[in-house]
């Protein structure tokens, strides 16, 4: 694949200029452009080497291991472990007698639900808050700053905090919903009976501030005249939102959708802290499954195959996303 690096344009000789002086100019520019390009290559070389060593090589290594029979007995051989062909993939995808198959399908389903719910909730929450904070009111700056607080809390801490808050007997959620307001008549065991919802909510809580910040920046750059003209034409608030705000924020929605899905599909810290390394069939996600099977059960071949499938799913998602939003990408470029 070729990459297009920006190059300095070669100017045609000026017709009115003296011929003996005009000739060396393009030559000099060409030479300077070549040396500039060489410098650029040298400058990006460390980053390329770093990416190859730290990202590309381990990823390729993971793909190779996915074709190996790498388990408790062969772990010490690592890359020299016996070749297993497509057996790991077959057992994951098609072998209904293999418990790893149902575990994988369950985790894939949970991950899809978790991702859809957390990304949808984050974008909706972020947009809603941005619309609210885009209005003038006293203390707006302070509120905006406070709203950003969840984003600076590390995922691990988010898991610990919400794990405590969701405890059915002493957690603050039930204290509010049951003891304080009486909204619920019984004490739900969030971490047992609603485990997937219990990890979706903290994920949204942590993601909303960044989404809000991005949407707020977008809203503030939208031209006021459009809204004024639409209002004069009789468009109500909902119509103005539907036909002006949303289309103009589409590039921002697109980029957040892209990274939100990838982030959620690779989520590990929040479920593992709140529910443990084996969150059970209702909330086992792809990453908890992969880490558990690889590092606790020593099924590294299985883990590598499942990781490769997850990565392929993400690349497929990127392709779908690119097709759906390519016009927005062009207009933003």
């Amino acid at each position, binding site marked *: *694949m070729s*990459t*297009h690096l*920006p190059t300095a344009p070669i100017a045609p000789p000026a017709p009115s200029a003296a011929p003996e002086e005009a000739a060396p100019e393009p030559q000099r520019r060409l030479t300077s452009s070549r040396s500039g390009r060489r410098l650029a290559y040298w400058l990006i070389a460390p980053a390329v080497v770093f*990416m190859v060593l*730290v*990202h*590309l090589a*381990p*990823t390729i290594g*993971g793909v190779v291991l996915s074709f190996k*029979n790498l*388990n*408790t*007995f*062969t*772990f*010490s051989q690592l890359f020299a472990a*016996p070749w297993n062909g497509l057996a790991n993939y077959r057992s994951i995808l098609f072998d209904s007698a*293999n*418990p*790893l198959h149902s575990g994988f399908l369950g985790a894939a389903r949970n991950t899809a639900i978790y991702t859809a719910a957390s990304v949808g909730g984050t974008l909706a929450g972020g947009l809603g808050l941005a619309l609210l904070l885009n209005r003038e009111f006293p203390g707006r700056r302070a509120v905006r700053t406070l709203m950003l607080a969840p984003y600076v809390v590390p995922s691990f801490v988010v898991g610990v905090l919400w*794990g405590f808050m*969701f*405890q*059915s*007997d*002493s957690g603050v959620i039930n204290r509010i919903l049951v003891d304080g307001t009486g909204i619920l008549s019984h004490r739900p*065991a*969030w*971490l*047992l*009976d609603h485990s997937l919802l219990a990890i979706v909510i903290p994920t949204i809580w942590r993601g909303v501030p960044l989404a809000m910040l991005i949407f707020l920046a977008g809203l503030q750059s939208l031209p006021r005249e459009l809204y004024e003209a639409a209002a004069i034409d009789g468009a109500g608030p909902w119509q103005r939102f539907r036909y002006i705000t949303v289309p103009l924020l589409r590039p921002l929605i697109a980029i957040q959708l*892209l990274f939100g899905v*990838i*982030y959620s599909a*690779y989520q*590990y810290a929040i479920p593992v802290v709140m*529910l*443990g390394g*084996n969150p*059970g069939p209702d909330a086992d996600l792809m*990453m908890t499954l*992969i*880490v558990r099977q690889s*590092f*606790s*059960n*020593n*099924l590294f071949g299985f883990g590598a195959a499942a990781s490769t499938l*997850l*990565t392929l799913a*993400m*690349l497929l998602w*990127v*392709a779908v996303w*690119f097709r759906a939003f390519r016009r927005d*990408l*062009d207009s933003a*470029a």
Partner: protein
Amino acid sequence: MRWSRASVLVAIAIMVLSLFAAACGGDDDDAGGGAEATDPASLKGQTVRLWIMNNGPHPVEDTEKIVAPFEQQSGIDVKVELVGWDVQFDRIRNAAVSGEGPDVTQAGTTQVPFFAALGGFEDLAGRVSQIGGKSAYAPGIWETTQVVGRDGTWAVPWFTEARTVLYRKDALEKAGVDPSTAFTDMDSFKATLQKLRSVKELGGKPIAPFGGPGKKAFDLVHNLMPWVWDNGGAELSEDNKSSTIASPEATKGVKFASDLVSSGLWDRSMLERDGQQVEDQFKGGRLAVFIGGPWVLAASKRSDDDTWSSAARKNLAVAPMPNGPSGKGYTFIGGSNLMMFKSSKVKDAAWELIKYLSSDAVQTKYADLMGMFPARLSPQKQQGTLDAEHEAFYQAISTQGRSYAPIPQWAQVENAYKGQFGRILDTGARGELSDAEVQSMLDKAAKEADGLLAQSTG
């Protein structure tokens, strides 16, 4: 600057791969350097690196205190390094495979067969006669140093623990239960919990009859297997080739635990917590009965442990695990062993350290500090004479103790069981499960375990 679509796609693809690589990133960046290269002719001046886990409140300081006399006598320097329980499995495995590790490491008793199977540990069979060999340890404890189907002695027992019933004397008194018969068998255990239901509050605090952690506990299998063993069940077939966790006997044992949850005798909110959190609930006075190890007893005597409510601390008592229908009771016996890395350059010095840590006096002293029991028979017996509580633990270790088959795949089989045990308890919290429902979930655990047992080198 305008980017072509291809460039944007490539950039995004790299980002996806990078994020994935980051998400899967290991934590073995500090797996340790190589062993010291020293003159084998003299042990004096050699340095032995020892990996220990969080065995007590001050694990490194306590261990350094214990090895200080050894350093003085032998001239061997001991470098004690702490490796958390949360990462020790990965770190020891990686060190064994890479040959980049310490000289000696602590390892959980059930982990020894797996580590030994990696081929990175020294066979100590030729040396253990110097510390009394097999006869100096209880058979169940010595068995944890072996690997089924492989000759050799791959570890030396360091300290031992067994689970017993820990209860509040004041709670039993208020419920009108005689402690001497309260936990003799599974029926009386359940009857006691039912009576404890009437005790809603103690010392101004709400109290539940019983509680234990669920799927978040690393040792969930150790907590449930005694009920399985009591009912005549077992974790594996006699030849260790297949799982027997879905047998009718094992099902009965697991259902006993699940029924405690569904009947409300086992506080279901405890299932949302991990083992340490539930232990803290017991210490804080929220549970009347709890199943725990000797470290809880040791913690009750430590004034700096402020998780205890004064009533819970004052009224703590210990009883052996209940007997099953056959009249015999079981408990999981665990603890830690010491293993020597094959890559060690100071094997003789490392062995001298293991030998020192295996002496009766040092075993007693270290077990005292850690709140555990010595692994050797003689100091273990001595520890059991300290008071009634220690005696109950000693009885549990010597008469009820049972562990799992020392096979390399055990840790993975245990994970498979843990997953379904956690699920059964969670489901039990929503209502009573039938035998068939429990068995169907255990069938899944057995199927997964059979797959793990079938792992091969080919």
